[in-house]
């Protein structure tokens, strides 16, 4: 942490250590196994009394000496140099703990050199028995150095009991020690036989070449099988969760595991060629191919071993970037820059890009290259167009998916890093913070004459904030489906809700009448919903123009799942206006007319983190790129193949797996419901934020293209968090409910800290769409609010929801007079101030709830004295 950083740019991300390391281990394993073959080959030559075979042994020994002692030995030092340059803190840790194990290994290394030199210079000097004994001694010493170095390498992967005991021997004889010793021993013998095959192919002729090749091939087959078996043992030592994260969910390592897996039979098969008589030059070529297969084999193994250690350099003790697990809290508090201030250029202390780059060097460069072949940060962050998405990624990193360490540092540092990557590395243009230009809409009020009109027609939409996901042909979260309701009241001293002989029709404004021309929903609907819909027909058969159905019990007319979309020939408008008419069935006379908007937005900011542009230039809609990335990430995390399926013409409805009450979808019952899953996952990435976290997905921001949070509550300074809690609280309330149903949601909950309350236990579980904030939490007894905090007090059931509640007379639905949720009168719409206030303005020429301000005459024709709808309503 307090060492300077050598940042390699292109060659970063482990490329340098991988190149030196793999080259070294290949030769080093050859060195270990080679002693055995020197002994065996020489013995064979003596037994066969073959001077040419003996000469071959001598030549092989020279090749062996030159390769293992020079290139092998010095690159071993090279690994040591490299790790101390790239991971000084970890190297220092290892040296200080294992210095005498290294020293012991060095003793064997020295003995190895001495014996090898004696062996080579001892041809013709020693009698064969003693000479062969030297080869066995060589093997013994070489194997002993493997023994000692393995302990240290495997300590890094599985420190085991050392983590608690801090006992050196616990660390050395760690859980993966023995499997690794067997694995590497067998591997060393296979590799030595491969090298034997190469020298035999090049240095021997005719019968001897064939004989020796078969001899080596036999050993390759035998030891490769043993290597594989030891590999399986090795693999099974690893933690199950880790195997899942790294080898199943990380495509990079999954591929390498596949390589390793398939190379085993391939090496065996190619070796089997040698059992037949091969042409000389073919054999030479084939032996070189074997040499290459061998290096890929060992290389893929070493990559897997290193990968299995992610995100640590010493498992559970020190992260790959050299930050100790135990220091994380301090780094978060003090800041990574402050802790490394020695290496900061004071003259550039105000240069954000410089600071971001320094953070990158400290935290990222140990694993990520800049533009290089390994873990290229440019490629990995390409999809991010703004620092927000990357900050979110950094926030969530290491929480659920464990293959990266958590970001360590302050919030400011997180932002500096994100800005450096976006603006400094990706060279993306800064998004200009201009407010979107909205096309104003025109509003004309329907007629109403206080002294003449016989009827009052109330109409509403039940979800004041509503989105559709226009990410077809990839996935659908919410189809175009808006519910409208109406209530016809016959005015009089004692007004009554009338239904007899009346029908209510609705009609969307001009321009929105052909949603099928605007979106591709109708192409994907049969596959997603199993229904063949005529163009323009909604999921329940309703269209954007039609007749409402009467619910006899309440006298409310309704039309559900109207397929209205926010697109028209004029562009994006999330508030299409519907004209509602009450008509006398017999005469066809229009009894009353009103208007209501059906909020329907596509301003879902998936793009903020998943990349891609908005689908519509007005700042809404999910583009193809965004939609694809959502599936790509889902596939990666959950081992699904949704993107592939979507590209093959089978898009996915989220609720086909995740249950969701809003669509009455059963899904796969063992999975968390959609709201819990989606909020639970994203809360890990968006934690620590206020309502802007909500705005990333819901169209509530006044700076956005919808501004859906437009009712009186917004005007009074309340935001999403006031009623729903912070995203973490909100997610936890949903997750706790799922947990109580026995679903596996712990991993989503583990890193979420409640913010509105001080402990997880205090968060009340809630079922989405049914347990929602309750008006009475603040408006006790219909009074002015006693507080502005609605979190954690949920409606008991669907009946208690605001949108399903009635006044005390049981006749008027609350929503009819007070307006839609999130658009409670008086509301203010960013497209046209009064777009949500049509009925109050139409009937009583103010923007307040129907009847408010002593406007009883709207229905009653006279002023009333009793507060029959609810107390506290007769106020000026």
């Amino acid at each position: 942490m307090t060492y300077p950083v050598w940042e390699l740019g292109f060659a970063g991300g482990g490329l340098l250590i991988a190149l030196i390391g793999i080259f070294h281990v290949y030769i080093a394993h050859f060195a270990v196994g080679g002693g055995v073959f020197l002994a065996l080959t020489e013995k064979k030559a003596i037994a066969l009394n073959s001077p040419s075979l003996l000469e071959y042994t001598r030549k092989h020994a020279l090749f062996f000496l030159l390769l293992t002692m020079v290139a092998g030995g010095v690159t071993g030092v090279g690994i040591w140099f490299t790790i101390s340059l790239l991971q000084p803190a970890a190297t220092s840790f290892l040296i200080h703990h294992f210095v005498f194990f290294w020293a012991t290994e060095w003793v064997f290394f020295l003995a190895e050199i001495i014996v090898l030199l004696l062996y080579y210079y001892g041809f013709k000097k020693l009698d064969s028995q003693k000479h062969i004994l030297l080869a066995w001694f060589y093997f013994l010493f070489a194997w002993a150095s493997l023994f000692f170095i393995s302990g240290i390498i495997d300590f890094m992967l599985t420190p085991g009991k050392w983590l608690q005991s801090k006992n050196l021997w616990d660390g050395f004889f760690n859980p993966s020690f023995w499997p690794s010793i067997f694995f590497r021993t067998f591997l060393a013998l296979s590799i030595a036989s491969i090298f034997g095959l190469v020298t035999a192919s090049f240095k021997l002729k005719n019968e001897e070449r064939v004989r020796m090749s078969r001899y080596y091939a036999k050993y390759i087959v035998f030891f490769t099988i043993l290597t594989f078996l030891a590999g399986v043992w090795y693999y099974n030592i690893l933690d199950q969760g880790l195997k899942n994260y790294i080898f199943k969910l990380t495509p990079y390592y999954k591929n390498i595991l596949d390589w390793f897996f398939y190379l085993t039979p391939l090496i065996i098969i190619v070796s089997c060629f040698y059992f037949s008589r091969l042409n000389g030059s073919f054999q030479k070529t084939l032996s070189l191919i074997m040499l290459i297969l061998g290096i890929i084999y060992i290389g893929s193994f070493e990559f897997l071993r290193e990968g299995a250690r992610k995100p640590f350099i010493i498992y559970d003790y020190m992260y790959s970037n050299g930050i100790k697990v135990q220091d994380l809290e301090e780094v978060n508090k003090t800041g990574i820059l402050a802790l490394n201030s020695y290496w900061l250029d004071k003259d550039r202390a105000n240069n954000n890009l410089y600071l971001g780059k320094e953070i990158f060097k400290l935290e990222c460069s140990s694993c990520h290259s800049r533009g290089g072949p390994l873990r290229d940060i440019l490629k990995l962050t390409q999809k991010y167009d703004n620092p927000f998405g990357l900050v979110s990624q950094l926030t969530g990193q290491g929480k659920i998916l464990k293959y990266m360490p958590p970001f360590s540092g302050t919030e400011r540092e997180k932002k500096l890093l994100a800005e450096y990557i976006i603006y400094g590395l990706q060279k993306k243009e800064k998004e200009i913070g201009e407010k979107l230009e909205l096309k104003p809409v025109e509003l004309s009020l329907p007629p109403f004459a206080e002294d003449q009109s016989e009827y009052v027609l109330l109409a509403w939409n039940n979800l004041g904030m509503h989105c559709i996901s226009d990410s077809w042909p990839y996935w659908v979260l919410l189809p175009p489906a808006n519910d409208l309701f109406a209530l016809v009241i016959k005015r009089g001293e004692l007004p009554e809700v009338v239904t007899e002989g009346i029908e209510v029709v609705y009609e969307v404004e001009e321009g929105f009448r052909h949603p099928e021309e605007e979106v591709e929903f109708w192409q994907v609907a049969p596959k997603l919903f199993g229904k063949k819909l005529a163009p323009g027909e909604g999921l329940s058969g309703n269209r954007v123009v039609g007749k409402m159905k009467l619910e006899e019990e309440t006298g409310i007319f309704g039309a559900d799942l109207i397929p209205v979309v926010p697109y028209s020939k004029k562009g994006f408008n999330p508030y299409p206006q519907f004209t509602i008419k009450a008509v006398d069935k017999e005469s066809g006379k229009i009894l009353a007319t009103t208007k209501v908007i059906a909020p329907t937005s596509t301003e879902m900011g998936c793009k903020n983190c998943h990349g891609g542009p908005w689908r519509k230039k007005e700042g809404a809609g999910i583009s193809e790129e965004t939609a694809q990335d959502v599936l790509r990430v889902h596939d990666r995390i959950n081992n699904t193949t949704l993107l592939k399926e979507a590209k093959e013409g089978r898009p996915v409805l989220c609720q086909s797996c995740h249950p969701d009450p809003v669509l009455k979808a059963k899904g796969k019952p063992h999975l968390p419901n959609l709201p819990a899953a989606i909020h639970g996952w994203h809360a890990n990435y968006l934690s620590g934020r206020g309502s802007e976290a909500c705005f990333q997905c819901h169209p509530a921001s006044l700076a956005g293209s919808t501004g859906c949070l437009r009712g009186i509550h917004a005007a009074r300074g309340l935001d999403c968090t006031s009623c729903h809690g912070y995203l973490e609280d909100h997610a936890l309330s949903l997750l706790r409910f799922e947990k109580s149903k026995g679903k596996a949601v712990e991993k989503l909950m583990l890193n979420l800290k409640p913010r509105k309350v001080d402990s997880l236990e205090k968060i009340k579980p809630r079922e989405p769409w049914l347990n929602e904030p309750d008006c009475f939490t603040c408006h006790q007894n219909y009074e002015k609010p006693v507080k502005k905090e609605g979190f954690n007090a949920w409606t008991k059931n669907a009946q208690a929801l605001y949108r399903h509640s009635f006044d005390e007379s049981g006749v008027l639905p609350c929503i009819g007079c007070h307006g839609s949720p999130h658009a409670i009168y008086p509301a203010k719409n960013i497209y046209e101030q009064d777009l949500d206030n049509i009925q109050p303005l139409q009937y009583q020429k103010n923007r307040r709830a129907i009847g408010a301000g002593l406007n009883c005459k709207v229905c009653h024709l006279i002023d009333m004295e009793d507060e029959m709808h609810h107390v506290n309503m007769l106020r000026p």
Partner: protein
Amino acid sequence: MSLNMPGSILLIPAGWFDFFLHALFFIHLILINIVIGWSIITLVEEVKNKDIIPKFTSSRLPTLLAFAINLGVAALLFLQVLWSKFFYTSSVLIAPFWLSVVFVLILAYYLLYLYDFKFYSLSSAVRISILALVVLSFLYIAFIFVSNMSLMLRPGHWQSIYFKEKLFFSGEPSLLPRYFHFIVASVAIGGLVFAFWGSKKGNLQVKVGLKWFVGATFLQVIIGVWFLLSLPKEVILSIMRDKLSLVYLSTAIFFLLLSLFLAFKQKLMQLIYSVFFLVLSMVLLRSKVRFFYLKDKIAGNNFILQNDYSSFVLFLITLVLVTGLLGYIFKVYTESKLEE
């Protein structure tokens, strides 16, 4: 400004590590001096078209290099225990150069083998080219090593090098004299060892070898003074104030003069002893100088002593057993006279 380096554990008291560091460094130093000295001398003799030395050294150089590297690795291991913070930092600051040493070394190593194996089949010009490349490689490696070992003593220079305000070898007055001191010492030791080793073959070898020794050692007197004076004032003052350092320094001067005298007298065995003590006192003085450079900074060098001797015992037992085994192997080897 604080270096704020984290503390590290120390298994057993620092003295042990100091002992192994110096013992192994001493052997490494002698070996590497021979390798570099011989390479230079051999090159010069090749150029002069004289073959007494090349014939002798060519077949021995690769093996000597193998052991020089091996001992160097061990010394570096113990250096990293005691001086990790300083050593790693300076290494990172010169990282590309430091790492390049590995590859240049492999090149030089192979070239030495080539020189050995093809000694009789290559033309003199090719041999000279090969050797010249070897010498250049060694001079480069030595320069990087000396630079790193100097830079680790100079925390005050680190920031400006990290911020690329200056080059790693600039601004260190003692760097060049230290480097030349080392190279010239290599030639002297190389000459001496050739004289000693070659003495079995005849008196001519002794004469030629000692000529190199004496010439280089005379030059060393000048370079030594230059080196000493190039040290920072505080370090020189610390030497002057520290009795042990003064003993090392005066011992070194004494054995230096004695060695020159013995060389003139051609008393080889005594000369070897004298140079042994000369190098030993130099190594010990060097250790003192390192301490004086960093004594203000060592305060932050907080080791947490564990007193855990278990792995140390493992090392010692291994050392004894393997030495025993090697002894047995040597015995077997030397007793065999199959074809001699």
